[in-house]
């Protein structure tokens, strides 16, 4: 199992692996927003948590079609399916590798990008916490979408259409927690719901992903 995770991480940082792609996209989206809405710090400060969350979500979406499609194309998914590794473990590891290469860097740079959007100082901690708690759900749900579309050539757009509606609850509670934190209110309720979504998807979705993958491999 460690071998698969290590391979995916190594592939991500090698040429064409896509590591940093999501990060760069996140950076550009965040930098573009002040150009679009104007330089009023008050307005920016108010929309900053939402912008950071949407940016992180889209950056996450960008790399979803690499999770399984690359392994499908070169045949290693067939070979992995016949290896002594349950498909449930395979999809969980794929989601974990995706989170480490995409979600985690987003979490870490989000407070720095908050500066560009004049996010209030109290908000730095909460954007970090809400993203850290929410991005694993994005990777797990995304892996489910990737499993659904694995046999489809150029299935990236279909994947986005399938996955974005599923991201809505995570976005609502994640952005709400960050917004409340930035405005100095209690964040307990949205964070608890966000944690519920994340742990629920981690516990249940790998089984669904493995089931659809089994059908798609036929």
């Amino acid at each position, binding site marked *: 199992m460690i071998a698969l995770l290590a391979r995916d991480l190594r592939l991500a940082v090698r040429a064409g692996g896509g590591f940093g792609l999501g990060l760069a996209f996140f950076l550009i989206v965040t930098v573009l927003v002040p150009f679009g809405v104007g330089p009023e710090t008050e307005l920016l400060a108010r929309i900053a948590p939402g912008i950071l969350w949407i940016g992180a979500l889209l950056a996450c979406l960008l790399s979803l079609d690499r999770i399984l499609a690359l392994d499908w194309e070169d045949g290693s*998914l067939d070979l992995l*399916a016949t290896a002594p590794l349950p498909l449930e473990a395979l999809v969980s590891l794929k989601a974990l590798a995706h989170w480490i290469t995409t979600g985690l860097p987003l979490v870490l740079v989000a407070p720095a990008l908050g500066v560009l959007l004049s996010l209030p100082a109290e908000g730095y901690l909460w954007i970090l916490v809400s993203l850290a708690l929410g991005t694993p759900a994005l990777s797990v749900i995304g892996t489910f979408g990737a499993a659904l579309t694995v046999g489809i050539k150029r299935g990236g757009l279909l994947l986005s259409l399938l996955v974005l509606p599923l991201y809505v609850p995570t976005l609502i509670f994640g952005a709400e927690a960050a917004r409340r934190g930035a405005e100095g209110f209690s964040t307990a309720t949205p964070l608890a719901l966000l944690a519920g979504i994340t742990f629920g998807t981690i516990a249940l979705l790998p089984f669904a992903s493995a089931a659809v993958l089994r059908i798609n491999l036929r």
Partner: protein
Amino acid sequence: MLLSVHDLAVARGGVPVLEGLSFALAPGEALILRGPNGSGKTTLLRTVAGLQPPLAGRIDAASDAIAYAAHADGLKATLTVTENLTFWARVFGTGDIAPALAAFALEDLADRPAGALSAGQKRRLGLARLLVTGRPVWALDEPTVSLDTAAVGLFADAVRAHLARGGAALIATHIDLGLEARHFDVAVCKASPRAAAEDEAFL
């Protein structure tokens, strides 16, 4: 018996392709599958490997008995030959990749990225993976595609050594490997009319 198949029917995309297949492989035995393009050899091998459920019949084999090798080698272009092979060895929980590199004359290419290999060299690396799986039954789909005569010889030697160790092999191929093996023409098990014609492109 390492693998026995009773009255198996297989389907591709819901269309029955072959039916009434029965054969068994004892340790040291190889079975060569013959049949024209589209006759269902790949579908049979994928079913035996457990990638798709059989339409009818039974496949008896230990769950960790079969090592499958498909048309695609499952190589990562940016990993080196050693890294590719080590990955599979770790997935299958076996250790040493040196014998597998030696068996397919890959030692000189060990540090080359797989993406920089020729088609035949990639195939040799894909076949070397079989040796690091440590599994007794090899299910091979056209293993000799893009191999030159010398490499086909290496492959035949590897299969012979595998059989001598008590393994078994199920090989779909169009060329003569020079193995002591039974031949089985899948065309005689072609499924009844409804299976015919239209969907052959998918077989």
